[in-house]
């Protein structure tokens, strides 16, 4: 029987946390209006999922792949990501403040009106990922690479990061577009 994330969440009792770690795959689901704070997810593959109004505050994601997922008004504040891959994902109006990313990758992702303030990227790869009207203030960077067509550029510090992304037109705001 195919596992369904919606039903797993539905079966959680009050006070239970979402804790999954057995190489499961969830696809083509829409997850709406859930409080899933402090979830622990490892070895999960999410394909074509829509997360809308989901609160994942303080969650832990490990070896998790998000492929072609849409996040709308999702709270990932103070969440940790270890060896995670975001592929062709779109995050809109989402809160990633103080999220920590370790040994992970964003590839062909789009951040729209999202808040990444004070988030932390360590051993991280950005590949063709754009940030529009998104807050990257106070982020911390260590061992981060950005893919510039045909080569990886190593980012030395936070100010370099923003500059390089702006030079590559990967960061934009409405004001920038209007001017």
């Amino acid at each position, binding site marked *: 029987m195919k596992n369904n994330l*919606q039903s797993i969440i*539905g079966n959680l009792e*009050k006070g239970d*946390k979402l*804790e*999954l*770690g*057995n*190489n499961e795959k969830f696809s083509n689901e*829409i997850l*709406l*209006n859930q*409080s899933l*704070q*402090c979830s*622990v997810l*490892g*070895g999960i593959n999410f394909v074509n999922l*829509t997360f*809308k*109004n*989901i609160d994942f*505050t*303080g969650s*832990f994601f*490990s*070896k998790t792949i998000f492929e*072609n997922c*849409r996040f709308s*008004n*999702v*709270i990932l*504040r*103070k969440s940790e990501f*270890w060896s995670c891959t975001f592929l062709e994902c779109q995050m809109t*109006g*989402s*809160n990633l*403040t*103080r999220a*920590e990313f*370790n040994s992970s990758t964003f590839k062909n992702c789009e951040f729209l*009106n*999202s*808040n990444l*303030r*004070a988030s*932390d990227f*360590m051993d991280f790869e950005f590949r063709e990922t754009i940030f529009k*009207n998104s*807050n990257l*203030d*106070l982020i*911390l960077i*260590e061992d981060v690479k950005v893919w510039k067509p045909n080569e990886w550029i190593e980012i030395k510090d*936070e*100010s370099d990061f*923003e500059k390089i992304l702006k030079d590559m037109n990967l960061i934009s*705001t409405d*004001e920038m577009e209007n001017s």
Partner: protein
Amino acid sequence: MKLLLKKLKTYFRKHKANKIKSSGKIIVSAGLALSLRFGEPRLTSSRLSSLNYESQVVTERVILNQKQESNSCDDSHNSGKVIQTGNGIILESQQEVSDTSSNDMDEIILAQGDGILPGADGFPLNNNPRRRHPFGRPRMRGTGINVDPPQNIQGLGNIPKAPKVRSFREMYTDLNARRSNRGDQCPAPEFDMKKEYGNFIQKISKKGYEFECSQERFNELSTNPQTGSFDEKSLMEAKGGLQGEAQGMYTNIRRPSNKAVDLDFEIDSSEGYTHVDYKTPIDFQDLADKKGIDVSNFPSLETVAYNMGKKITPQKEQFCGLPDGPKSPENVLHVVNLDLIRDSNQKQNMIDSVLKGAEDKGDNTVGIYFLNYL
């Protein structure tokens, strides 16, 4: 295409009068029709405006007067219905909530600040150049290992004085107020705070600490300052924070007065600390034993702890110089709460790894305390 637009205009004209005026406004986006017709993923507002339809139009959103799927855990916004078309387009229908009849205050919670969730509801975009260190980059002090030994030992330290009582403002938490407090529509988790408080007091006295803390203060500390409501994470921080106070690490722990200073708490300390940030690592082996999850899908606790230590050094600088923020990194205390780690050998390994990470990163292990490390 033209024919379709014409049909739409006619449809809107016919239905405008009797549907828009009702409390559950029915507004049909041209986006739905066009997307369904042509399978086009997006429709920009400029294209929509060409329909010359004067009513409110929400791009890619259809607002219908219908109930949402039963999977929602929050009836207060139980109105969105999402349709996924064959080519993966997500179309959403949602009843506009215009019922403000229940303006009565159904409960009061204590909160500080405006309680607006940054990011979830359109945070003010910082268009200014980076002001990471507006008053100049702070310098890290000291080299070598220095772990402030007395404070690292449970049971030492004086019982702190009764905490100062902070002033609060009442915050209405009826349907609409709660929604605005939380940004858009993320459901707020529910907690029995009386029970949480009782359990905490019981646990802390079992550990041998005499500690006075009112339910009111417990609630305040358990309130996420960014959202104005209780949540799992802020509750965990509050329990650790209060235990730290009970152990005499600092006094007068309270949530930051300036939300922009996104550290967990403000404190008073004879050691010069003004802010504290809590780290509470998870025990994956415990999860494996209890829930049967495959622990190989998770990093080792030593790796987690080592990276944690590496990050602590720059994190001490992160909010320095902001109004009501720490003046320098030396004013920021990091407490690693090992309460969730079962095995005492594992706890020791984690302590070593945290300190190693901090040392490798900044030659500095000052301002790192450990809680529940035995």
